[in-house]
């Protein structure tokens, strides 16, 4: 028995080490990116690769990115603003809709749900032209408000949250009704707290997706002062095309906030996605 146990442990250990190496290889692009951002330009492409720079140029590189000709701090702020506001709006809109689609019985519920689901099936690029026209007419081009609205009505959030609301026992709702609570009260005091992990998961995902959104800011924004970070790094790359160390400093800067948000919320996201898929 002892021997068998010991054997399992060793093979597990070996597999862990192998997987660890694979994991590092898998992350090499990231590691290279960070390392390059710390280097002098001429050291970036030296071979064999210097993973730890012999000459640290980090301060110069990052100051160039942040304090240079492109207003990076402004772009950062724009991204944060748009992402946070979109997340708040989308979560709110989706939560109440999801609750209704799962716990309230109203006429046409299933039809409306399917209709809403259909909007999720469309690739955004397919409707971007009429959206642009609509926005032109409504004066929403080149505005953060317009940008926020675009991503705030995603059926994905409603769909996902509905799955979780459906998991709430109907009896809980019934007993609340017995006690005289209307749907509003039931929603706020009972249903909402019960799906908190799902809300957290969706909020994080929505934040990440909005932060990474490149196409919408590209198409719907015009003024440089309104640009988000994704446009910023692409333009930065265009301007400093061949200065790789600077480009890498820019991209690292763009990814870091996401990493922070993700690492803080990672348990939620991973559990949320896994749970959601099993239920589905």
């Amino acid at each position, binding site marked *: 028995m002892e021997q068998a146990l010991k054997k399992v442990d060793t093979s*597990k250990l070996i597999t862990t080490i192998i997987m660890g190496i694979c994991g590092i290889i*898998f992350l090499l692009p990231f590691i290279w990116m960070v390392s390059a951002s710390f280097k002098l330009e001429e050291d970036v492409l030296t*071979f064999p690769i210097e993973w730890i720079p012999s000459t640290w140029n980090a301060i110069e590189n990052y100051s160039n990115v942040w304090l240079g000709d492109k207003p990076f701090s402004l772009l950062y702020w724009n991204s944060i603003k748009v992402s946070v506001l979109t997340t708040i709006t989308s979560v709110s*809109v989706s939560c109440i809709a999801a609750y209704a689609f799962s716990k309230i*019985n109203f006429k046409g519920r299933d039809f409306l749900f399917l209709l809403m689901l259909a909007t999720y*099936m469309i690739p955004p690029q397919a*409707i971007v032209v009429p959206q642009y026209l609509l926005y032109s007419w409504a004066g929403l081009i080149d505005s953060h408000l317009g940008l926020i609205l675009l991503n705030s009505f995603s059926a994905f959030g*409603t769909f996902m949250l509905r799955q979780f609301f459906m998991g709430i026992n109907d009896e809980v709702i019934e007993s609340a009704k017995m006690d005289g609570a209307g749907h509003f009260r039931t929603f706020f005091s009972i249903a909402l707290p019960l799906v908190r992990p799902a809300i957290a998961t969706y909020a994080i995902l929505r934040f990440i997706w909005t932060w990474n959104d*490149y196409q919408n800011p590209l198409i719907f924004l015009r003024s440089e002062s309104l640009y988000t970070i994704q446009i910023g790094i692409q333009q930065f790359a265009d301007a400093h095309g061949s200065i790789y160390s600077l480009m890498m400093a820019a991209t690292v800067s763009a990814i870091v906030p996401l*990493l922070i948000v993700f690492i803080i919320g990672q348990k939620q996201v991973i559990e949320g996605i896994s749970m959601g898929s099993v239920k589905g």
Partner: protein
Amino acid sequence: MDNPTTIATGIKSKKKITKNRMRFHKWRESLTGYVFIAPMIIGSSILILYPIIASFVLSLTDWNFVSGIEGANFVGLENFITLFKDSIFLKGLTHNVILLLVLPIGLFLSLFLAVVINKKVYFKDTFKIIYFLPYISSTVAIALVFQVLFHPTEGPINQILMTMGIENPPQWIADVHWALPSVMIIIIWTQIGFQLLLYMAALQNIPKELYEAAEIDGASSWYQFRKITVPLVTPTTFLLLVQGIVHTFKVFDLIKVLTNGGPSNSTTVPVHYLYQQAFEELKTGYASAISVILFIILIIVTIFQWVGQKKWVNY
């Protein structure tokens, strides 16, 4: 006077009152429902449903955006006819179909990794995070990094290959034959994390007894994988397959930043062509026709999912 008629009428009127009360409650319930879903429905109707319909209408015109709406002429299916003779569009469609290859490769890798991480390693959670990182990173940033990594002469990847003795490593995104595979590699790299997570969740649901029984019968790990694991995760495989197909048709950011459709249209896809036609060539009507085709393709895929789910998935 409690004769039978009055009692009957009494009961009837009581029933009517209750019925009316129920009807009122139902109405109130419906109203509440509508209020709750209003923001979502109104928002998505204006921002998504309406544009879908508008796209269909626009695809039947030759509007070029700069001339006012009066300059738009109804041209029926002319856009579509031109589209089907448009070599760039057709090339794009072919490329998209080729891109679909990332799915079998990616799914196999993810499932394999999922099986390994699930049972055979320590630090499960750390590995989950590691493999998920590329998925959450911004496509623009990834495209920029890989632009450098894939550099034909100075990029680290080719440097390594050359040291290993390969004299003429692929030119990656500079080469018409290697550009699309480069895109595919990046797509697989980013999607593995997401697919991995879903597979791991599915694996949790496979009853251990099945594996134990197979073990007792002397089945090898590979055999167990083929006969137990793969069949039992078909729901997830199917879900990922369909989502994957939709995703590959939507890949825009990566291509726009990495290759912008080149070199010489070797990485163009319908979605990218759409952007070009709509916002660079300003041929709105024509671009809308592309939208309609994409929409139709994806609806077909979705229907396929609905139908196929019943036939091929083991629950």
